[in-house]
């Protein structure tokens, strides 16, 4: 089951600052509730865990995340990740492309395209809308967290 998210959000900080934040896995993880970094495999690849909890439902995925492309000049980042449900009954694959665009007045507009593919237990349920809703919601939380952390410096 595949879902996609396309979002744009704006922050007051300049692209350089936003770039530094979004390419630092330690900081990104702070804005993903339930996520933690377990191990740095190499400078672009990390092992980690990602917990998703919504109401009574809880799933924890363990896996790797990787910066596939860091193009500082074009201000584009591509990341991909894959993880396995710790109960062995499913898996998730993610691909995300982010692009930073300077705004008049010094802020940054962040464009994000993300695709998520689920296999196994969660994909067995045809109410794809739920997963989409949850992904949208989590993404919304992520962007507001990023905005806040950037403001804190």
């Amino acid at each position: 089951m595949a879902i996609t998210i396309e979002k744009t959000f704006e922050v007051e900080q300049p692209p350089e600052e936003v770039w530094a934040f979004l390419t630092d896995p330690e900081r990104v993880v702070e804005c993903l509730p339930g996520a933690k970094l377990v191990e740095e495999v190499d400078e672009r690849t990390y092992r980690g865990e990602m917990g998703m909890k919504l109401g009574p439902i809880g799933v924890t995925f363990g896996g790797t995340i990787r910066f596939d492309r860091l193009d500082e000049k074009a201000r584009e980042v591509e990341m991909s990740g894959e993880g396995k449900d710790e109960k062995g009954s499913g898996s998730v694959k993610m691909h995300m492309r982010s692009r930073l665009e300077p705004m008049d007045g010094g802020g940054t507009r962040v464009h994000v395209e993300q695709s998520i593919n689920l296999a196994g237990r969660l994909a067995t349920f045809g109410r794809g809308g739920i997963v989409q809703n949850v992904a949208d919601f989590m993404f919304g939380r992520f962007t507001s967290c990023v905005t806040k952390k950037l403001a804190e410096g």
Partner: protein
Amino acid sequence: MATTTVPKQIGARVRRKEDPRLITGASTYTDDLKLPGMAYCTVLRSPHAHARIASIDTSGAEATKGVLRVVTGRDVQEAIGGLPVAHKIEGLLEPPHRVLAIDEVRYVGDGVAAVVAEDPSTARDALERIEVEYEELEAVVDVEKAAAGGPFVHEELGTNVAFTFPFEAGDVDGAFQDAPVVLRQRIVNQRQIPFAVEPRAVAARFDRGHRKLEIWSSTQIPHLLRTQLSVMLGIPEHSVRVIAPEVGGGFGSKLNVYAEEALVGHLARELGRPVKWTATRTEGFQATIHGRDQLADVEIAASEDGVLHGMRVKLLQDLGAYHQLLTPVIPTLTVLMLPGAYRLRNLQVELKGVFTDKTPTDAYRGAGRPEANFIIERVLDLIADATGIDPIEVRRRNFFPADAFPADTCTGLTYDSGNYQAAVDLLLETVDYDALRREQAQRRERGELMGIGVACYVEICGLGPSAALPAGGWEACTLEVRRTGRVVVKTGVSPHGQGEETTFSQIVADALGVGLNDVEIAHGDTDYVPEGIGTFGSRAQAVGGAALSMALEDVRDKSRKIAGHLLEADPEDVVFDEGKLHIRGAPDRAVGFQDVVTAAYMADDLPEGVEPGLASTRFFEPSNFTFPFGVHLCVVDIDPDTGEPSIRRYVAVDDCGNVINPMIVDGQIHGGVAQAIAQSLYEQAVYDADGQLVTGSLMDYAVPRASYLPSYELRRTTTPTPVNPLGAKGVGEAGTIAGNPCVMNAVVDAVSHLGIRHVDMPATPEKLWRIITERD
């Protein structure tokens, strides 16, 4: 046959003997079994449609307290042979199908490992402690892409096409040349998921003393299962006993040999403890066969007067990832039955069976015949539409006439008996068709959407002559009259809802003049009933009942001999009459049937050459299939705002030959039509592009409830078959076969004035809403 008694039970609406125990929970299903020392098995299944298994680590599960055994495909590959496919298809590619996958998984639900534990919860918990590393491979999901090339479900085959089955009869090119009406239509029979209220379940015990494996399984075919398990497990057949206890529905989904049946048998033998596995509902959706899934591209040649002259059909059968027992055979039945009730002489079919990374398909109520009938009955409506002739009249013009029987089809079948026009005549007596058409015209004026659908059918039943089936088509029956007068019938047709305990009792009651409750029908235990084929293909009555009739004739003959001796008369002059045997023309000179039974067992005063006892075992081999037929009509209303269809009226005229119990026949039609309505309007197995089954639960797969079904009006004509002594043809699948085109012809008819010629199943509200709004 010298039947002189007046039939009393045959033809009567006798209430089902088996129902009180079934509906009060007093019966035993496989999952109810609790054997001393029983352990519980669960199966770990692939979450991926196609992946290489890089590694499996079972140590966590093995270390779990209460876990007795964990096995992978490699662990059991020596001990358990591959799953069987029974077929007579030339050149069929048969890739290995192991009970647990080795190295590669090929559909979501493919078994990867199994756990046996002291209790079901521990077994379930332990599954989560098996670590499997998968390397995902590209899944083959779309059947047309799969047929056209790679990637391949089974890489080593270098193709996804397991077989091609070309068929040609008559002069097809000639029929199309200069045909005034040439039509093309893609007709899809979407994938269905059979839903039996009782999920699959298997229990096994190995009797070390007798070196005998006992298997309890929710199966339609205990005898065939016994043979196959013997082969798969390398145990002599006489050392395997299969018991089918109560079976809570099958619809073809239990007409199979499943991995768990062999796996549980093996584990019970290896552990020396009884083992049981019961499918979860999720396993019912993912790891029990699916049905239908055919894509047909049809070309039609007809004349302006509505006569069908030729058809070309390109047929793709989605087989799923592996062959199950009859997977490739099902679409060949579609080919055979494409002519339907009509004198089609020129037919060309190119059937391809194609592997995809999905659950295997196999027999589902009707098994290939609903697919065929949906095609031909849509074709007749397309011709009606193109020629402007009423659909009923078009059918009339193409029927085999009543004097054509036995009638040969261009597909090599011989229809045993029939009178199709008579069924239509009865329909038109029941329904004021012209008034319905007038009402439709008036409603259209008001912007309302009403459709009238008619579909005929001929089905191939009473499976069947052994030469035409992959594993025997006969049936066996042992009839034993016990010294108390108790009559025991041991039949090979093990029922799973068909009511054979009642219908067979009715047959015995009439033949021997005993009460229904004096008859006991034994079935579903291969030690107690050593031979049989099973209940499927509407064969229980037509083949199993026929074997019973033969055995009854033996017992009647012997009874007359004994009675004649007791009455000092020629046995030829002795007649059965309501529990008594008397001399023809002299009802006072009589002995009771019980007197005959007692004499047979006392054996001190038997006629010369007559053995003690009163019993017979007979095998019936049918000379042909039987071909029930009929015509159904329904009226569908569509909500013009929401697109919701609803069936206002459903009339069925069926002819299944002689009827033993009209109430049970009615029930079979009700259930069959319900499943057809389900396919027409609600149910569809949906896979996403990655091969995930996204209709994998009852929350997602739309099995309709009773409130969505109309009240059926049932009528019958009776054209007995000459193929068996009962004259009964079978009725288990008729409703399903007639129902799909009947409902869909009505749906299309409701929107035909909007320029619509065909609607794919299921006709969901949204599909119809699009048709309506796009027209607006």
